[in-house]
């Protein structure tokens, strides 16, 4: 409880409030993602104390995910990918004149789902970190590979392209001075590359500029339809509905937290899975404007954010692109994400938990304001919003190190991100690889030095072997299942 009062100081609350406002704006604006919001806000946190910076990140991510549900309900356009599943029944409810109820359910379920996710994070992360203290280089190598393989399997696009995206990220992570020998690798004499590819400009490019280029390629489809928004919340009706579907909220939040905790997944996958589960249970009801179809995905997507922090904090393994950026930011603040953070920066971790709970409470007024200002937001010209994103990207990249090279780097990654999306190559594995690259390389090399070049201990130690088998199964599993299904089909024919 004392940690809760520690964070109630103006130098944490004011940035948190600003970040939540920004999260509402980005989340409610179709085409801008929560990841982009986090990437754009990181440069502002550079000179702040770590808890204030991390509070901003937590605030922006939870609010943006909720705010994405607003255009999903009114316009049938998800504000962020995580709101895709909420679009179906939310918009159907809107057509039936129940938009206010849908949005009130969105808001309350997001907050409750978020709280459940955060509580599970608080319960699971410390013991998991304690268990991870016994891990050696061999286990850490496989943990890193596990994170990348899961990202490749769970991302959109196909697995081969997902794995290639991760491999490209690993290759980019080798740029810069080699820690063991001090030799500069792939720097081509460019001094700005000696410390490696600057992570934050790369993220801003991949998630900010690539989105602008994508919007540009849509041409005339950039403008949003005008909409009349009734912003009154239906609190009592929503509370009654939620009481009726209380187990769905709990189930969806648990599913969301579990999926969020899988490295490389994220709020969008969590929302779709929990929506799918409800659809299987009530096929006739879901999809026709049922509150159940709104409650499930909105509880799950916010719970997934809490879930994604579990591997990030306890193992240093990002749960999704947002936590990948957060881990990059933590390194920037001089923190070491992973099991040691619970002993070296214990106070910060518990303050972080307190912030995450506080954000869920503040989400209610912030979300209400978001719903109220939505009609003004959609009246903004998309061209103005896109120009603002480019300007923020430029200044955000520049301000980190006062470096124009970083601005160019950001633009390069923007183009790369756009090209990858065009060929259905997921970006998330590359982002995770940029963060995990050094960890994977160091642990592989140190492991090999310890064993005189033998790869055997990487496969014989119990946890290493278990992780290896799990990786192989997760990569080969879908192919094995489809092969067996084909065989069965042929046999039955």
């Amino acid at each position, binding site marked *: 409880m004392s940690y809760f009062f520690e964070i109630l100081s103006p130098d944490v609350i004011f940035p948190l409030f600003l970040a939540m406002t920004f999260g509402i704006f980005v989340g409610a604006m179709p085409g801008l993602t929560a990841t982009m919001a986090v990437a754009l806000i990181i*440069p*502002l*946190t*550079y*000179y*702040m104390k770590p808890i204030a910076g991390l509070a901003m990140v937590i605030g922006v991510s939870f609010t943006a995910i909720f705010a994405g549900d607003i255009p999903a309900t009114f316009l049938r356009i998800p504000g962020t990918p995580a709101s895709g599943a909420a679009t179906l029944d939310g918009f159907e409810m809107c057509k039936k004149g129940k938009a206010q109820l849908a949005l009130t359910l969105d808001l309350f379920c997001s907050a409750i789902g978020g709280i459940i996710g955060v509580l599970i994070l608080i319960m699971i992360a410390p013991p998991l970190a304690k268990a991870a203290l016994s891990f050696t280089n061999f286990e850490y190598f496989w943990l890193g590979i596990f994170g990348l393989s899961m990202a490749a399997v769970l991302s959109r696009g196909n697995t*081969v*392209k997902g*794995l*290639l995206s991760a*491999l*490209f990220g*690993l*290759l980019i992570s*080798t740029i810069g001075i*080699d820690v*063991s*020998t001090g*030799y500069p*690798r*792939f720097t081509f004499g460019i001094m700005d590359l000696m410390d490696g590819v600057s992570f934050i400009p790369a993220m801003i490019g991949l998630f900010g*500029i690539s989105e*602008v*280029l994508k919007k*540009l*390629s849509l*041409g005339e489809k*950039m403008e949003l339809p005008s909409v009349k928004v009734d912003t009154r919340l239906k609190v009592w009706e929503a509370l009654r509905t939620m009481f009726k579907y209380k187990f769905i909220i709990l189930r969806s939040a648990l599913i969301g937290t579990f999926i969020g905790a899988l490295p490389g997944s994220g709020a969008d996958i969590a929302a779709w899975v929990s929506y799918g589960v409800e659809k299987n249970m009530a096929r006739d009801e879901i999809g026709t404007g049922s509150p159940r179809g709104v409650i499930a995905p909105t509880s799950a997507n916010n719970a997934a954010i809490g879930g994604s922090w579990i591997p990030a904090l306890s193992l240093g393994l990002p749960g999704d692109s947002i936590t990948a950026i957060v881990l990059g930011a933590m390194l920037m603040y001089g923190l070491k994400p992973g099991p040691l953070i619970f002993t070296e920066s214990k106070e910060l971790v518990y303050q972080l938990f307190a912030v995450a709970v506080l954000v869920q409470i503040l989400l209610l007024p912030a979300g209400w304001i978001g719903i109220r200002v939505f009609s003004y937001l959609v009246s903004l*010209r998309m*061209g*103005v919003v*896109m*120009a*603002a994103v*480019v*300007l*923020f990207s*430029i*200044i955000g990249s*520049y*301000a980190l190190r*006062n470096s*124009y090279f970083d*601005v*160019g780097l*950001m*633009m390069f990654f*923007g*183009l790369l991100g756009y090209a990858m999306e*065009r*060929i*259905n*190559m997921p970006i998330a594995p590359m982002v995770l690889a940029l963060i995990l690259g050094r960890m994977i*390389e160091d642990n*592989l*090399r140190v492991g*090999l*030095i310890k064993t*005189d*070049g033998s790869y055997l201990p990487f496969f014989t130690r119990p946890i290493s072997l278990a992780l290896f088998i799990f990786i192989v199964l997760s990569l080969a599993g879908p192919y094995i299942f489809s092969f067996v299904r084909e065989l069965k089909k042929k046999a039955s024919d």
Partner: protein
Amino acid sequence: MMEVWDLALGILCVLLSAFVFYYSGTFPKFISGDKELPGPSFFPRFVAIFILGFGLFLIVNSGLSLIKKREKIRFLDNLDKKMLLKFIAVLSTGFVVEPVLSLLGAVPGLTAISVFLMRVFRVKWIQSLIYSLALAVFIYWIFRGVFKLPLPEGKLILLFRG
């Protein structure tokens, strides 16, 4: 069409891995005592082997698919010149930002870049001027005023100030 891009990606992977092998050959070896340990070239080559493998897979897979479909290889079928120009315009802002900001300073420089971008995004002149100025002042206030992050002053501004 996707097979063509897959083929291109496969070729790129093969070329990239060949480059990594060639270039990392110039890295020094990491020798401790009489033992050669995994040096700076070890991990890039380790990654390049997998990239090569997936690249070859993509070439064979997409190549076979293209042969089956008997499609002509045309990469730039849907290239829209206007769109390409807009892309170049957006990306070029990353490269003109240095001369513009160091000459004009943060607020006028950002306003100028923003007006240019909004015109690219087909916002009307007057609107783009008003929005750009407001946006530049807001960014300056947030970065410089609230978060105390340094932004360029601009030679012209410094000249006026004497």
